[in-house]
């Protein structure tokens, strides 16, 4: 599917992406200034940043934040997800 009259997507999205990029930088400064660099979610975040180089970046970032195992877990002890897989350290 393509637009009938394609618009310049840099014109459309640069300012929004610029703002989010600065927010990411500020988040990293904030976490590190607070001494929370070792939090597994922050470590997963740093790993995901490595996926921004080339290729299917969105898919790769999402995959890097995903549980890579294939088996059902014995029991759900929580309902919540936190956005990063806590088991990454044990791989």
């Amino acid at each position, binding site marked *: 599917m393509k637009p009938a009259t394609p618009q310049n997507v840099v014109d459309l999205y640069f300012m929004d992406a610029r703002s989010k990029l600065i927010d990411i930088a500020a988040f990293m400064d904030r976490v590190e200034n607070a001494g929370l660099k070792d939090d597994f979610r922050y470590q997963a975040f740093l790993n995901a940043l490595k996926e921004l180089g080339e290729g299917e970046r969105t898919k790769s970032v*999402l995959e890097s934040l995903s*549980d890579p195992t294939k088996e059902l*877990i*014995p*029991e759900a002890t929580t*309902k919540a997800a936190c956005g990063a*897989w806590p088991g990454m350290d044990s791989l």
Partner: protein
Amino acid sequence: MRYIEPHAHMVSRTTDDYVSMVTAGCKAVCEPAFWAGFDRSSSKGFYDYFRQLTEYEPARAAKFQLPHFSWLCINPKESEDLALAQEVLDLIPEFLDKPNVLGIGEIGLNKNSRNEMTILEKHVDLAAKHNQLILVHTPHLEDKLKGTKLIVDLIKSDSRIAPNRVLIDHVEEHTVKYVMDAGMWGGITLYPESKATSPRAIDMLETYGADRLWMNSACDWGISVPLAVPYAAMEMRRRGYDDETIDQVFFQTPYNFLSQSPNFKI
């Protein structure tokens, strides 16, 4: 514009939201059964909820000439308790004859546990026995990739279920291809903080086409936007799409899937 909201939890929304949606061009709203934000204490809570979805909520929407449809199930977040889940499953058949019921949903997995899978299998069996459409909820965040594959593989392995009668909801860039390749339909949920934004949803449509992908707001009691679907239509317009394509994406595509149920008449 005209659009169909294929996934909204209107029991959690105000009447003002109905007014806004109809004003924006909503021609039908579809409401899957889901988790209320807390666990119900017994199957009686689900009985009342199913009455709300099949009697009260359609009447509330009808005040604004908005057709309201629903999907029935026990959601995966409450499926860890197998005895409760079985009691709720036993309640569902009597509600399948209600005129606004489209099928079984939103079933699926939450934490990808064994009990969740057991109850998912029972729902798929129920859908097969009663020839119902299936609407699937895929897990959140880090659990989505694994859960989507487990769900799609399970449904594919049941020869009684035609893949084109199944919609896998909450797809993202790492799961959409798996769903499309399986011959099923996909739903993209537009949330402010998780799932997808409208620019990302449009990117996915540009890659995979609009024939089997719809967008929804999945608005509920959490952070969500009941007008997310018409806002995404505006985003498509900004990208240079014409009225005809916008109508295809926001009306025709969901219409084509949903009208596989004889109850979906608008």
